[in-house]
């Protein structure tokens, strides 16, 4: 029996998400090395989709559409991955401070959630501290967005064209990622930059699509990413506007995690 035959039947179960234990771990190790089995897995997932599509039944109730449209109206898109588009030139210089403010806000909110779950008494005990931290975060944001703010790029004397630069701030524990970029080069038509997390194991994970503003600045704030990823590096590629699930070479920017 060849190694592929050995894994053949496990692949079908894996495509269903029904393979467990040592067999799952062994297959996943094999898949990392075997393009042939990865292709077969993709086909089996397609076969499984046929099974899903074979389900038939009544149409959803009309209220379901109303519920959905109400929900998306309350959650407008364009505030996360595309948040950097249209920002002015001061963002690159103040990007770290803005990112820090967002991290503080996120940490406060996370902390609040944990405490809510544990006990109301504990939440009340932390209330003052959280107010203080939130106040600090708001103060940073207020400064950044004040009408009289001075926005200055600080760079080595004599450097005429600063290079493209990006900074990724990532917390595995909080499942949070903030990326701030400056001096990005303009994109070809119908293309976008895509941020990738390069995990210590497995394939690169897409972490937000963005386009730079007229001054080359951009931000990605808390894109939807899987939890618990150990990141060893962050990379930027140029992809179609709708983004890709695998990076298109070449990598245009790369930074290793600390």
């Amino acid at each position, binding site marked *: 029996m060849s190694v592929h035959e050995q894994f*053949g*039947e*496990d*692949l*079908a*179960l894996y*495509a*269903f*998400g*029904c*393979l*467990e234990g040592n067999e799952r771990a062994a297959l996943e190790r094999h898949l990392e090395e075997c393009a042939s089995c990865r292709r077969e897995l*993709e*086909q*089996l*997932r*397609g*076969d*499984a*989709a*046929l*099974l*899903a*599509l*074979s*389900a*038939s*039944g*009544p*149409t*959803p*109730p009309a209220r*379901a*559409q109303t*519920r*959905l*449209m109400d*929900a*998306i*109206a309350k*959650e*407008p*898109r*364009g505030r996360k*991955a*595309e948040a950097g588009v249209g920002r002015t030139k001061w963002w690159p210089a103040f990007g770290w401070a803005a990112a820090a403010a967002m991290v503080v806000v996120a940490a406060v909110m996370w902390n609040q959630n944990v405490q809510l779950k544990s006990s109301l008494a504990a939440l009340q005990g932390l209330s003052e501290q959280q107010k203080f931290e939130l106040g600090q975060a708001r103060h940073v944001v207020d400064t950044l967005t004040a009408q009289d703010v001075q926005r200055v790029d600080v760079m080595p004397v004599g450097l005429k064209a600063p290079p493209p630069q990006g900074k990724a701030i990532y917390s595995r524990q909080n499942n949070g990622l903030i990326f701030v970029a400056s001096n990005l080069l303009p994109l070809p038509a119908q293309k976008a930059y*895509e941020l990738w997390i390069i995990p210590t194991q497995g394939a690169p*994970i*897409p972490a937000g*699509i963005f386009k730079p503003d007229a001054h080359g600045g951009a931000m990605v704030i808390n894109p*939807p990413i*899987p939890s618990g990823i150990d990141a060893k590096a962050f990379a930027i590629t140029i992809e*179609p*506007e*709708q*983004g*890709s*699930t695998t990076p298109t070479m070449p990598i245009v920017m790369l930074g290793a995690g600390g």
Partner: protein
Amino acid sequence: MSTAARNPEPNDGALIAAIHSGNQDAMAQLYARYSSVVYAVALRVLGDPAAAEDVLQEVFMQLWRSPGSFDSGRGNLAPWLAVIARNRAVDVLRKRRPQTEISETIVSVEPDLASDTDRSRAMEKVRAALKDMPATQRSSLEMAYFEGYSHSEISEKTGEPLGTVKTRIRTGLMLLRKAVETR
């Protein structure tokens, strides 16, 4: 020239691109196209209209939040949504956290099932193939896919050896593939 010819319906890729820009009308159009598919799968798994409606809501909200998770270059939206709905519904049924990120779900179906007609024709063949299957094989396939049982759980429930369960599921899928590929 008819109105339809002058104003063709935007394809799924165009609607996904519009969702990237926050276009709620595009979302409504995709919902109109595929809500029945998503709801049918969720209802098949859960057997509870209210729970199926929750999955329907969740799947489309995920699409709204992460339209880039769907790669139109690697498949069509209908099977992708059906698989996302099945995965989420099984997670709900099994009372577990989501096992698969939607961005990790890649579904490639041959032949192309982009149009309603293509899908209807393919589904007729799939349902016929399921009907023609030995009952034990169909049961293993459905227990694994629509009820989310592991192969060892199916083995325990049916009394069949593990290897037999695995083989039945694998060959069952092969039969579905063959049925759809047959012109």
